[in-house]
């Protein structure tokens, strides 16, 4: 039985460590904030210029000057600070963020990530995704294992234009978790969702991986 979106987010949250500075992408990655273990301190960075992102505001307390990178209204915390976009991406590019969790369209077996454009479709832009994968120390991609038409999204090589080359450290799908110790190593299967067999996973994956 495949993991739900929330289960995937909860699994991604297990990659958090006490004291981490973390950037969460839009979609399932945003849900990771709900699974930060009690007592663990994790500081969320929002690339539009904030460190120490708080929860969504209560109704009536929305502040249009206070949004996250998904343009959602948020709140500040006692630890928060604000800064410019260039300072924010200096922080990202300079390797000061410990972990980036973001969505993907395709990940290749050598760690390439594609998540920003589909040729022939309207392209909305890469936003900060290329900066995040190029700058953050560790990159975890959370995505459905297969696309709607059943095609593998963890594949031998990406067909879509890349967001970054050799930038992914871990893939969490609804079927399995793959990771590698460094960016010179191949991915290894770490976990299978309950009821998913190794053979089924293999048949739904085009990437090579160690088991």
């Amino acid at each position, binding site marked *: 039985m495949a993991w739900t979106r929330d289960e995937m987010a909860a699994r991604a949250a297990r990659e958090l460590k006490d004291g981490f500075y973390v950037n969460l992408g839009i979609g399932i990655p945003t849900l990771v904030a709900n699974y930060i273990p009690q007592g663990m301190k994790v500081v969320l960075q929002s690339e539009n210029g904030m460190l120490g992102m708080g*929860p969504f505001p209560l109704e009536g307390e929305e502040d*249009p000057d206070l949004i996250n990178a998904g343009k959602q209204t948020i709140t500040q915390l006692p630890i928060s600070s*604000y800064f410019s976009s260039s300072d924010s991406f200096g922080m990202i590019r300079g390797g000061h963020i410990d972990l980036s969790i973001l969505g993907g369209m395709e990940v290749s077996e050598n760690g390439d990530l594609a998540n920003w454009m589909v040729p022939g479709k309207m392209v909305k832009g*890469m*936003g900060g995704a*290329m900066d995040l994968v190029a700058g953050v120390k560790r990159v975890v991609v959370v995505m459905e294992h297969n696309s709607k038409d059943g095609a593998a999204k963890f594949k031998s090589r990406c067909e879509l234009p890349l967001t970054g080359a050799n930038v992914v450290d871990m893939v969490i799908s609804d079927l399995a978790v793959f990771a590698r110790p460094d960016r010179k190593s191949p991915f290894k299967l770490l976990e299978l969702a309950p009821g998913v067999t190794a053979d089924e996973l293999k048949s739904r994956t085009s990437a090579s991986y160690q088991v």
Partner: protein
Amino acid sequence: MTGSASKVYANAREALAGVVRDDLTIMSGGFGLCGIPENLILALRDCGARGLTVISNNAGVDEFGLGLLLKTRQIRKMISSYVGENKEFERQYLSGELQLEFNPQGTLAERIRAGGAGIFGFYTRTGAGTLVAEGKEQRVVNGETFVLETGLTSDLSLVKAWKGDTEGNLVYRKTARNFNPMMATAGRVTIAEVEELVEAGELDPDQIHTPGIFVQRIFKGTDYVKPIEQRTVRKKK
């Protein structure tokens, strides 16, 4: 654009007078609809300048922000990182009426900072191995590939701050700061609109985000709408 003739103008229209013409390159601050120069965009629409190249992280929405200038076909080219919220943008782009250059958001921010700081170009890991690097100089250092990105400047930068003083010193509020400080440094002429305009000396000199040297004209904006694109709330427990 110096001169101790006061930097203070009555409103957006007067602040734009004499510095806008067709075919300019204009930087416009903000992230999404947060921290955008609302008054200046409206005045820019009303003045009718055409063929503009606009450098802005986003392109507004159909009925607000830079979307208004797309509607009137005043923009020839956008340099942005993300333009997902705008149907008219999509239509003009797909029909070939509008040119578009995508930059990674951090690269865009850094290019603007570089332009303002007299840096010709810089090497970044961002975009290496992607379409963004195509046609650009690259260098490999210790096995890592870096892409050469160049500085950006504008003929006119339009920025929005929270408070400003008669000297042009600016203070931003929360995440409405975003691209505004760098854009202020990169304009040959920079116009700032502020929610509160105070006398020089009222802002703490340790707490000024943009020193007045970067601001040639300033005015108090009015009728701020500040639309929220994704109103998201939590339940009271």
